[in-house]
């Protein structure tokens, strides 16, 4: 077997041009297969990504509740003062939503603005959710990522420049939730910086541009609430649909660890908790798990309403979409099963569509493999004729019919596998190029590589068998005489 392989490889080396042309055919076939698989899975992943980016697996728990649990969903029930505040806070969160601004609220500590000497510090923080709630939610089955959220409006200053922007106190997991984010410069803050409540900041690209122009802010210092923060990164979007603009909640913003917000503003609460479900289909189940978990943790009696609101991105969009609050409430209240039906079904439909597309692409690729295989067969048949004399010589010196056959089969396999391996490389390059161009995550699994090389070898054996049999059947005397 090994000597047959050596014979086959030697024979191939003698016909370099023919060998390389045949290999090219196979290369194209395998590269096409790999690129198609990559595009197919990439499309699948891209659609899943978009579903996720669109928030189909996103759940937001907001502190407070503007809807009476006990009342009917058409909005006829009494509205609590806190709920009224909550609705208004969508419009003017700075003015009204802060408990320290609530004349009814009693506290015996110096306010953040007194301690830090910044009149804006501490505005806009909320009531009922805690970091411990977030930690408990992390333990729910099917929960992928959890990010705590504290939101403030702040002035960020860098030297002489000041910029009024949105501050988000959050968790290092947030970039995993915001799938469209990329870090043009630096990085997000890490778990260590979070747990030590360090004064580090990540600037949104708009804020960074306003404060530093084209200069690199990473390593520079900004001040928030008159406290120094070290800039560790600049976040921007990889999406080519939306360009970050001033007023943008995500990129005209500054991100710091929520622990730092807690430490500086002397707070223990969170405004909201953002959760992603590992699977879109589990969103509804996780929502109800979160609700019962938080109700238990907050010791809310059965007849009492939630002191938090669990929404999906879809509901939030509805609620924030400029609709009159009562209309939004009516809509959201009426579509309690909305996520369950539309999101899951949409997800499944998209899955089916991408599977069909993958199958189609795989079909095209299979055809190109077939063409590559026929190329090999053609070249092998030609080579049997061309090398009739060689076959005769080999037979005369003692090659058995099966030695000749295995030589030709192995030549075909060497051609196809050689082409296949080159094809893997070309396919990897092509698909990463495509991925870059289409901004798709074109993933090639080890399995896909193995399958395509395996198929290439199978093609070699299949299409090499017939010419090899022809070669083995040649009569030694006739082949020695062949001119």
């Amino acid at each position, binding site marked *: 077997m090994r*000597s047959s392989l*050596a*014979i086959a490889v*030697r024979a191939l080396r*003698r*016909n370099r041009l023919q060998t390389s042309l045949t290999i090219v055919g196979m290369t194209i076939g395998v590269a096409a297969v790999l690129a198609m698989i990559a595009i197919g899975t990439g499309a699948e992943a891209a659609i899943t990504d978009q579903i996720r980016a669109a928030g189909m697996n996103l759940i937001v728990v907001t502190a407070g509740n503007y809807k009476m649990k006990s009342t009917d969903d058409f909005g006829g029930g009494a509205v609590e003062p806190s709920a009224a505040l909550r609705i208004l806070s969508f419009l003017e969160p700075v003015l009204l939503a802060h408990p320290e601004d609530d004349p009814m609220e009693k506290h015996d500590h110096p306010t953040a603005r007194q301690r830090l000497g910044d009149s804006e510090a501490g505005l806009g923080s909320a009531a009922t959710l805690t970091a411990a709630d977030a930690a408990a939610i992390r333990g729910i089955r099917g929960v992928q990522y959890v990010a705590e959220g504290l939101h403030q409006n702040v002035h960020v200053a860098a030297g002489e420049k000041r910029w009024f922007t949105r501050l988000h106190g959050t968790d290092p997991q947030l970039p995993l939730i915001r799938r469209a984010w990329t870090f043009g410069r630096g990085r997000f803050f890490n778990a260590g910086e979070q747990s030590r409540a360090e004064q580090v900041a990540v600037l949104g690209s708009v804020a960074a541009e306003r404060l530093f122009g084209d200069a690199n802010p990473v390593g520079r210092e900004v001040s928030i609430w008159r406290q120094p923060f070290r800039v560790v990164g600049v976040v921007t979007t990889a999406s080519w649909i939306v360009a970050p603009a001033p007023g943008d909640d995500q990129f005209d913003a500054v991100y710091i660890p929520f622990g730092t917000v807690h430490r500086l503003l002397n707070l223990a609460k969170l405004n909201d908790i953002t959760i992603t479900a590992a699977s879109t289909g589990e969103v509804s189940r996780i929502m109800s798990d979160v609700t019962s978990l938080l109700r238990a943790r907050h010791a809310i009696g059965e007849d009492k309403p939630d002191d938090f609101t669990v929404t999906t991105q879809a509901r939030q969009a509805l609620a924030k979409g400029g609709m009159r609050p009562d209309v939004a409430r009516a809509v959201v209240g009426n579509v309690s099963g909305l996520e369950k039906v539309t999101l899951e079904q949409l997800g499944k439909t998209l899955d089916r569509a991408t599977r069909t597309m993958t199958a189609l692409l795989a079909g095209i690729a299979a055809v190109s493999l077939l063409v590559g295989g026929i190329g090999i067969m053609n070249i092998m048949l030609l080579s049997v004729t061309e090398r009739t*004399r*060689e076959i*005769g*010589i*080999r*037979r*005369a*010196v*003692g*090659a*058995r*019919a*099966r*030695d000749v056959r295995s030589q030709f089969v192995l030549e075909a396999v060497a051609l196809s596998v050689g082409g296949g391996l080159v094809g893997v490389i070309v396919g990897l390059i092509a698909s990463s190029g495509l991925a870059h161009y289409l901004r798709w995550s074109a993933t090639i699994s080890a399995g896909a590589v193995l399958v395509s090389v395996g198929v290439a070898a199978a093609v070699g054996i299949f299409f090499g068998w017939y010419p090899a049999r022809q070669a083995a059947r040649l009569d*030694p*005397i006739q082949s*020695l005489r062949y001119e």
Partner: protein
Amino acid sequence: MSRAEGALIAVRDVTKAYAMEGAPVHALRGITLDIHRGEFVAVVGPSGSGKSTFMHILGCLDRPTNGRYLLDGRDVSDLSDDELSAIRNRQIGFVFQGFNLLARTSAVENVELPLLYAHRSRISPAERRRRAMIALAAVGLEDRAEHHPNQLSGGQQQRVAIARALLNDPAILFADEPTGNLDSRTSIEVMEIFQRLKEDRGITIVLITHEPQVAEYGSRIIRFKDGRVVSDRPNVSRRAAADELAAVALEPEDADA
């Protein structure tokens, strides 16, 4: 049939017929003869006399239609193709008119070829190369080992072919018009090698030729005509190639071009 008194080759009533475009052709019409170890047999005859067919049968490249052929006491008439291949590999060496070297393959790789098919014995590539180099040295071409056939003269190519034929140390060497493509000087060189092989190593040589003067180098001359043996005689006045070469070397001008 009993073992034919230790004859290396024993042929009894061998016929060969094949159909060519429907008409039966009787290439051999009943051949019976023995060839003993160490003989240098020259088979002569016009083309179409059946001498090549005879050599193919003796060389286990072809099978007789009728009759028996015993090689070293073993009846090879009914052996399988694989068994015939093994015999060709171990016991028989071939030298052809057209040299039949693999193109675009170095001389030493050509010589190695039989060892690639020596299935019974596992031979390492280094050992293959070593043995091939020894065989090349025996025909005086060790310095041409890496040359390809198209970089070698006809005489050199035929010597590479002889080295290849001798690699597995065969009992018999079959040569089918080995000088047909060579000039007279290199023909004598090849004959000198053959005679040396017979004398020094006791190799049995069967030389097929249509040239009577080439047949004169053999120790026995068998004439074929129309598929039959018409004469079979020992050659007492055989030519000595070594002497002729020495004589040629003494001439001031080499006439060969």
